[in-house]
């Protein structure tokens, strides 16, 4: 009998929307090009034109790219396919270029602000609208930061549309970034109030408990300044520990914080780049606790100094504060923190530097009800959890031994539980007696 030749239907699932993705990429690149041109005096021609062609086109391009990426990807589920092959996410040429670009952007932002004189102009209309003063490099930065969180947040939500924890969490970081870290501080300026961030606390926002800042807030007209001073003190000493007791540090680090917000959205494609070795954990503990110690000493010195009215160590403390601002505030949190996303993952600052994360971490480890539980003996040691832990925790080393994961650095993003192909991990708040099983 001669075999029957059969025709197989072509599957729509393999349509690879290359055209849409390329169009999106082209638009995004055009936007990027206009953004670079906006650093020249060309913006004088028409700042609004430049806004539309840089930020507008760039955002549109990114959204069109994601549309192409997910259009035929109709079945929701964990999709980390090909991440290890891509130039951008595997420290290829694209990744390095992005790292160099981001790093130079931050270096200019902190130390060569004059570079931004022209680039800030396209944002004038927005700045005038929100704050009634012209834009500057910090407004430009804030606006781009928020935009990145929103657009990459949309991507994060589509990517994880099967996981309600991720959807709600991503909405939360977008909400706090847009509202509390961008709109409210701007509008406060419009109302002649201090541009206060209600979502950042000492010691991440290290000057919020400095005597000078509290003094300035108390003296600002109206009751709002006093409330801000009260807020800053109360959040750090009462609300942070209480919330961390109930939910672990995740309520802040991966739900509210702006640094975390950018890491969880823009940084999501880079989470596997964090180092998981035991050695890196060792460095992590030394460095992050040193930063915490340094900021505690600095704050104490400032208070002692203000009490003694600057008689002792006045100049030393001033220099100390400046050096901290330069090295930690700008160099570590900014330049390395975001600049190294495409090389070391998105949580470099949160993992190695952030003193607030250090405090919350200690609370999480010692007193919190939070833990990640392991489901019996179901672990197959595949390594998805460890690979996709942005904090560099070797989750597998706990899971394969049936142990709960209790680590001060865990920000509770929930990705380990999501990528686990055997349903072994779960983020839980529970009684302290069952914390270590």
């Amino acid at each position: 009998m001669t075999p029957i030749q059969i025709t197989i239907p072509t599957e729509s699932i393999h349509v690879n929307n290359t055209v849409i993705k390329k169009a999106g990429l082209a638009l995004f690149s055009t936007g990027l090009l206009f953004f670079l041109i906006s650093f020249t005096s060309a913006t004088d021609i028409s700042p609004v034109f430049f806004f539309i062609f840089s930020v507008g086109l760039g955002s549109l391009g990114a959204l069109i790219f994601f549309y192409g990426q997910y259009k035929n990807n109709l079945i929701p589920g964990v999709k980390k396919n090909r991440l290890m092959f891509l130039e951008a996410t595997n420290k290829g040429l694209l990744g390095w270029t992005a790292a160099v670009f981001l790093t130079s952007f931050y270096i200019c932002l902190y130390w060569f602000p004059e570079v931004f004189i022209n680039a800030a102009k396209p944002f004038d209309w927005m700045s005038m609208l929100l704050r009634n003063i012209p834009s500057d490099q910090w407004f430009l930065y804030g606006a781009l930061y928020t935009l990145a969180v929103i657009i990459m947040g949309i991507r994060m939500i589509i990517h994880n549309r099967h996981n309600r924890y991720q959807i709600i969490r991503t909405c939360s970081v977008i909400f706090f970034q847009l509202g509390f870290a961008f709109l409210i501080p701007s509008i406060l300026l419009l109302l002649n109030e201090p541009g206060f961030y209600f979502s950042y606390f000492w010691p991440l926002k290290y000057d919020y408990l400095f005597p000078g800042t509290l003094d300035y807030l108390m003296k600002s007209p109206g009751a709002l300044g006093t409330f801000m001073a009260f807020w800053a003190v109360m959040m750090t000493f009462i609300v942070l520990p209480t919330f961390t007791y109930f939910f672990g540090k995740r309520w802040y680090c991966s739900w509210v914080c702006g640094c975390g917000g950018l890491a969880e959205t823009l940084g999501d494609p880079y989470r596997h780049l964090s180092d998981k070795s035991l050695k890196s954990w060792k460095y992590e503990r030394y460095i992050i606790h040193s930063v915490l110690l340094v900021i505690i000493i600095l704050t104490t010195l400032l208070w002692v100094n203000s009490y003694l009215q600057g008689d002792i160590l006045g100049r030393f403390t001033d220099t100390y504060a400046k050096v901290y601002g330069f090295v930690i505030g700008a160099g570590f949190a900014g330049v390395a923190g975001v600049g190294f996303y495409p090389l070391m993952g998105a949580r470099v600052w949160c993992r190695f530097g952030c003193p607030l994360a250090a405090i919350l971490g200690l609370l999480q480890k010692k007193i919190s009800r939070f833990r990640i539980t392991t489901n019996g003996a179901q672990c197959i040691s595949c390594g998805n959890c460890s690979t996709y832990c942005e904090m560099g925790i070797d989750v597998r080393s706990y899971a394969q031994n049936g142990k709960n994961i209790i680590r001060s650095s865990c920000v509770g993003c929930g990705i380990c539980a999501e990528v686990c192909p055997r349903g072994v991990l779960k983020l839980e708040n529970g009684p302290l007696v069952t914390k270590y099983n």
Partner: protein
Amino acid sequence: MENIIIIGNGIAGITTARFIRKMSDKNITVISSESKYFYSRTALMYIYMGVMKHKDIKPYEDWFWEKNKINLINDYVQKIDTEKKQVILSTGINLFYDKLVIATGSKSNKFGWKGQDYAGVQGLYSLQDLDLMEQNTKGVSRAVIVGGGLIGIEMAEMLSSRNIPVTFLVREKSYWENILPIEESEMINKHIREHGMDLRLDTQLKEIKADNSGKVKSIITDKDEEIECQFVGLTAGVSPNIDLLKDTSIETGRGVLVNDYLETNVPGIYSAGDCVEIKSETAGGKNRIEQLWYTGRMHGEVVAKNICGKKTKYERGILFNSAKFLDIEYQTYGLVNFKMPGEKNLYWEDKDSKHSIRIVYTDEGVIGFNLMGIRYRQSVCEKWIKDKRSVEYVLTHLSEANFDPEFFTHFESAIVSIYNTQNPLKKITLKTKRWFFKKQA
């Protein structure tokens, strides 16, 4: 000091080594011809898919072995001399042992299909197979997978991740139907097709055809259909890899024959993992071959204890397993689809065909759980089965078993209402947990 030699560095061999080290300071040597360092075999697929790299699927960093004084040898064992108590490696080195552990795993089944050795035809078991697959699937416009088990669907997912169209031949009338109950099995059929795969149930491979260069060009099914393809994945199960023991006095059947202590007939020689065939204690009973990650680990632990003088019987306990079929997770506890006398099944399936809960019970109590797309706690399910809890008790407390992430929809009330409809005389109300005081089993 006693010399322990372990042949094979999969999960069974490595677990043996690790537990011996935990309990003693014996000299431990692990020999593998596949790779120097232990890696997670179940994660091979993720390398091909670009989800992880080889370094990511190694559960221990490389310094771990030296620190724990476990010698690793990347070599092929040519011969075992049980008289002189030594193993001979392909490089000519002889190693003496006091205790020997055979943990050689399994190999892909080939059932003598015509053309099964052509270029482009392969199974998937080892790192070498993965490299081969990388080569074999370059520029392929269609792949055929033969055999509807777990490796088959993994291979299908791998190929799909590279946009290679897949034809999937399954001998059974429904995917994995000898393990999965029919409803769940049909759910997976649907899901495979939803992924655009050409699933052919009740279809077997008859012949593989090659072009002039000896490379596969098509296959012919038992329905005499010819399907053009440049790659054929043979995934019709695995069987114990015991070629090494052919000319030794170690007793073998389908696998290495061992008793309940995982000892072979030769004193001082043990066996663990996929290669083991456990003799039935009862005459006329069935010998068991267990080829799961979890059983490999349990075997390893038992062998280690026996080698260290803590006589321990291997007891599997309440059965459990899990897998992931493309995007649908699967967990099972206890006896599901065993067709036990007097068994009743309570089954609920979501209308999206992505979630289901099955509770199997008899008049004496619950005996099994089967979950698709939903995670349940192993400890809770096991305890209920062990304690022979009634189905009414289990349904009332079902929320305690749920292990899904926070904010996920819980479906426990749906299955309770099915039970209530079927048994109008019993009105079961589901206990919901209060968030602060929730108990953990």
